[in-house]
């Protein structure tokens, strides 16, 4: 149960960070402001609110995930508090897991608040509790979970928070560009470069493809002709768990070799 105390402490530490509070306030303002955007587009109020809320959740969620996951361990190294913690009878694996779980608590709290406000705004428009929005927020969280796991892994090799935060932003951008590798692999195959095509295809399958979570866009504007995407959602949950496991595994590999 040692990891739980580490997680609780990480959570306490995280919610006190002014940067994160700032992001949350701006996000809540954007989500709240979405209701004014609808004045400009009568007839499509609900769509506008949904789109702005989801985009704000995703964008600010990304910033919060990257800042939290990228700065937790380097800050402890800078403040030297990590030495006190690791001098206790605590395995490094428990520390890694505890930190990651703590980061997830922070993410859940922030996304929960943003999601709740979005839900309330939508409720005032539609007079129903939008379960579709809840599913979309869940998909956003799954995406951020993968992003935070990978950023967290990068933070294990850095003694400063700057590198992991920048890396996190790049992981987010690259994660959304991975699907282009598929087209690239097809073109390489057509050009007769079978080996290069195979390597690119392998990268396409192994690298975390954050575009897969964009299915939330289709989910939130579900049309009568669309098939039910429950099967894809379950596969995405499994995919997320595995990507997170890879991230934690890399983090542990790097952290256990770190001289602290």
């Amino acid at each position: 149960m040692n990891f739980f105390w580490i997680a609780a402490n990480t959570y306490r530490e995280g919610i006190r960070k002014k940067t994160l509070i700032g992001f949350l306030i701006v996000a809540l303002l954007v989500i709240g402001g979405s209701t004014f955007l609808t004045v400009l587009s009568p007839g499509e109020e609900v769509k506008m609110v949904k789109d702005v809320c989801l985009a704000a959740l995703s964008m600010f969620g990304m910033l919060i995930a990257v800042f939290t996951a990228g700065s937790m361990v380097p800050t402890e190294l800078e403040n030297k508090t990590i030495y006190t913690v690791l001098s206790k009878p605590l395995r490094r694996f428990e520390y890694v897991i505890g930190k990651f779980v703590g980061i997830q608590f922070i993410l859940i709290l922030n996304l929960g608040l943003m999601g709740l406000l979005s839900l309330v705004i939508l409720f005032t428009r539609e007079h129903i509790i939008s379960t579709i929005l809840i599913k979309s927020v869940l998909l956003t969280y799954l995406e951020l979970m993968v992003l935070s796991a990978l950023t967290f892994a990068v933070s294990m090799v850095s003694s400063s928070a700057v590198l992991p935060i920048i890396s996190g932003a790049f992981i987010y951008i690259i994660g959304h560009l991975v699907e282009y590798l598929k087209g690239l692999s097809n073109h390489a195959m057509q050009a007769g470069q079978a080996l290069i095509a195979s390597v690119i295809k392998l990268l396409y399958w192994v690298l975390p493809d954050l575009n897969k979570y964009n299915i939330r866009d289709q989910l939130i504007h579900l049309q009568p002709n669309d098939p039910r995407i429950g099967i894809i959602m379950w596969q995405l949950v499994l995919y997320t768990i595995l990507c997170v496991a890879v991230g934690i595994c890399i983090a542990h590999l790097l952290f256990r070799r770190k001289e602290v």
Partner: protein
Amino acid sequence: MSNETRTTKQRAESARLFILLAVLLFIVARIAVRLDYLETSYSFYGWLLARATETDVIKPVLLTPGEQEATEENVFFEKVRTSLSERTGGQLVSEVEETHLWSLVLAEMKQPTRLEFERLASDGKLNLPYGAIDWSEESVGAHLGSLILGFRSAVADLLWLKVDEYWHQGRMEMMLPMMQTVVTLDPHFIEAWKIGAWHLAYNAAVTVDTLEEKQAFVEKGILFLQDGIKRNPRNHELYFDLGFSMYFLKLEDYENAAHYIRQADRYRPPDEKWIPRMMLLAYERGGHYEDALEGWRRYLTEIDPESNPGKRALYRLRALIAVRDERYDEALPILQEMFDTFPGANAFADIGITKINAMKAEAAGDLEGAKRLWQSLIDKAHLTVWDEAEANIARLNALIAVGGAATSES
């Protein structure tokens, strides 16, 4: 524990971790392959439904059979349709229920159909509903962020606000291409399809001078809505707008109007009453009185038993059928009964009865009498029938002149 033993243990643990990592990556790749299959199937489903809707619902209106070009996409579609028809029992693909179609697609998406679909899609030879961005487009910079970060819908919304701004500034040339960008980014943006088509057919059309240019804009509006229908094949609003705003109101083409409003009626929410009423009106204007009469009877039984427009339509259609069959003596009491039952409709009583009397007089050979009756409608300033009355007077004058000439010759 000696340093050597500790190092050996650490190495063994590292090796185990690397093996675990390799296993995890292998499973991630397996799931990614599965997700890839599902996503391709999803894309195939959208394409198939769009193509089937185009062929079964839109193309029959535009083209006669055999006019379809033999493009790679068309050939592939025909192949898939033939393969599916065995499992749908001859039912049109566009009419197959969603869950059933999805299971058919999952079965169809095995090799080699999947490989061919992926190849055609990758070569840009398929018109996919969730469209790819044309990189040569001028406005591509505007939505680059959305493509990289996945905010397609939100960027489409912001561009839509810009469209609205251009519209109020009267900058039509800026507005029209941006509308296309909006629906490419978010093909489920129903309001954009509807308002975009309206701008093209109604607003852009009045900015040009010649009839050909006006018709070209109306045609563009129709094509824009048809494109929207292909991407949202079961959305009743788009079918209704195409049928009612374009064909019914703009072109007064009641055959096509009835065709599309019938599709809207098929997918409408149960409490939507306006669509079936307009469908029956399109039948009536198109001269399909029996279909309209039957439809109104069904409407009164199944949808709205208290509907006064429905009850009035029953009288009106029975009268119209009698007039069409030249049974004028039957038509007049039907019409009179309608006016007695619905006193609110008395404003139209005079028009209806005068018209029937004029037709009756003409059928009896009293051309002068018929002409006088049509003239009386003009004299009473009944604007709704002014054109019709003038046309009939001109026709009757011609008939009288021909009759007079024939008499003088004999």
